[in-house]
């Protein structure tokens, strides 16, 4: 599975004196390459490449919030920040609005497999609350109409 990204992996391995240090980058790459989640096969493949016991790769993966194990995600991942600064500025309303708009509950994926909705405990964007992250990008000072625009633009991407 990691065959197509060999060059990228070579670059990652070069950063560290010990191959094991590359495990987080490898998990990130594997997750990106496989519908936003990590399969047991992918983790075993990483273990083989890094010379680690598979159980250690699984343990590292299970530790980090951004790892998604054995649960394919929608094409776009949405995380709404809900810790204190965002909550003070209306995060709960933003979450409800997104749930209504997408027709799903937090933690679920839309039927067309376009969006997976989650919450996050502080994304470090507190001065521009409320905010959400969609895939790699931050969307800040959210309003209902801004959310409509963002979802429409993302939904159009094929």
């Amino acid at each position, binding site marked *: 599975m990691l065959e197509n990204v060999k060059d990228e992996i070579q670059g990652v391995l070069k950063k560290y*004196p010990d191959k094991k240090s590359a495990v987080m980058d490898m998990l990130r790459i594997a997750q990106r390459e496989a519908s936003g989640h990590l399969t047991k096969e992918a983790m075993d493949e990483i273990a083989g490449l890094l010379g680690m016991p598979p159980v250690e790769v699984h343990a590292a993966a299970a530790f980090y919030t951004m790892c998604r194990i054995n649960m394919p995600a929608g094409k776009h991942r949405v995380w709404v920040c809900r*810790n204190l600064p965002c*909550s003070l500025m209306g995060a709960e309303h933003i979450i409800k609005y997104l749930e209504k708009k997408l027709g799903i509950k937090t933690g679920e994926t839309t039927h067309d497999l376009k969006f997976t909705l989650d919450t996050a*405990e502080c994304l470090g964007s507190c001065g521009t609350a409320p905010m959400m992250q969609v895939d790699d990008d931050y969307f800040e000072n959210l309003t209902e109409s801004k959310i409509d625009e963002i979802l429409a633009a993302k939904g159009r991407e094929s």
Partner: protein
Amino acid sequence: MDKVLLKKLGDPEAHKIDNYVKAGGYKALGMALKMPPDNIIQAVKDSGLRGRGGAGFSTGLKWSFIPKDPTIKKFLCCNADEGEPGTFKDRGIIDWDPHLLIEGMIIASYAIGAAKSYIYIRGEFALGAARLDAAIKEAYAKGYLGPNVMGTGFNHDMFVHRGFGAYICGEETALLESIEGFRAQPRKKPPFPALAGLYSKPTVINNVETLSCIPAIIERGAKWFSSIGPEKSPGPKIFCVSGHVKKPGLYELPMGTTLREIIFNHAGGMLTEKPLKAVIPGGVSAPMLTEKDLDTSMDFDSLAAKGTMLGSGAVVVMDSSACMVKTAYIINRFFSHESCGKCTPCRDGTPWLTNILMRLEHGEGKQGDVELLEGLCANIFGRTFCPLGDGAVMALRGALKNFRNEFEYHAKTGRCLG
């Protein structure tokens, strides 16, 4: 005070190396490479710079603990995990002025004799990681990184290590475990990282803002730096203001600016006509203050004297519409979510606190819940492996100390007071 750390905030071209150099960037590196490393460490000591990651430890002193033996490999790690809710300052430097951090890191590495450095950036900061990767590439191309930096014979390689979502990675020894490929659980200290850090080698771990102060200290001198703000915690400081104010955002001000000035002169005052009810001065681990404390000087020692802390400089402002039970619940939920599971008081204690706070908040509290919270706090505080659990307790105790009546009212009636 002219800006040192945030002078590029909002300038869409400033992150490029040509613009950085044009504005005088990498001049300090050239100056530093002509100095004996020990003189740099002395200058940083003399400047009075204290770590901006939260603990406020003397940066020069930390560097001086690194063994001088040139045959021992050493590392520098920059802590860009920025996870404390309310904090968004390091991102302000990384996104807009990545070369400032990189220049500071090269100088620090030269001072301690490190041939390699890593920037540990939280996984969610994709733009920041890309900015850093690009800036590092530019610095290599211009000879500020790589073999024979600026023709001086000093060699240095720098890498970005991206996190994957875990607040505990901000704790310095957990950060090292994470880079080494383990679950990010804190290590026992001693040995301290200065003797046995990354890959068991002597390692300095410093926050982004700390390292970004270094070029200005070299260029303008320790005296200039120590003349800004209070004698015992000098220098420029970034305050991250969020919550119920008109102009939330990042403000670079002299250390020791009062909370009142920050909130009312810089952040535009309260969002609506509702009055200020509580303010967290240093990220959610820091116990909250109230109206009567607004004239407190924002520096390490003055805040410690008030029973709270400067922490990461994250000022979260709450007006009278904020329920303190809900606030405490949200803060505690964060800590229990982020507890790494290594020690029992934190692993089991923080979710227990969260459950009680959740039922109080949802109107299902019981008589005695407030006392139960206090008892749990006593059994967590000071008994955890690292300060994460202490942070959870300090935050809750701060809320209980100032607003105990709200918690009791919730327990009795299931509703908010007032």
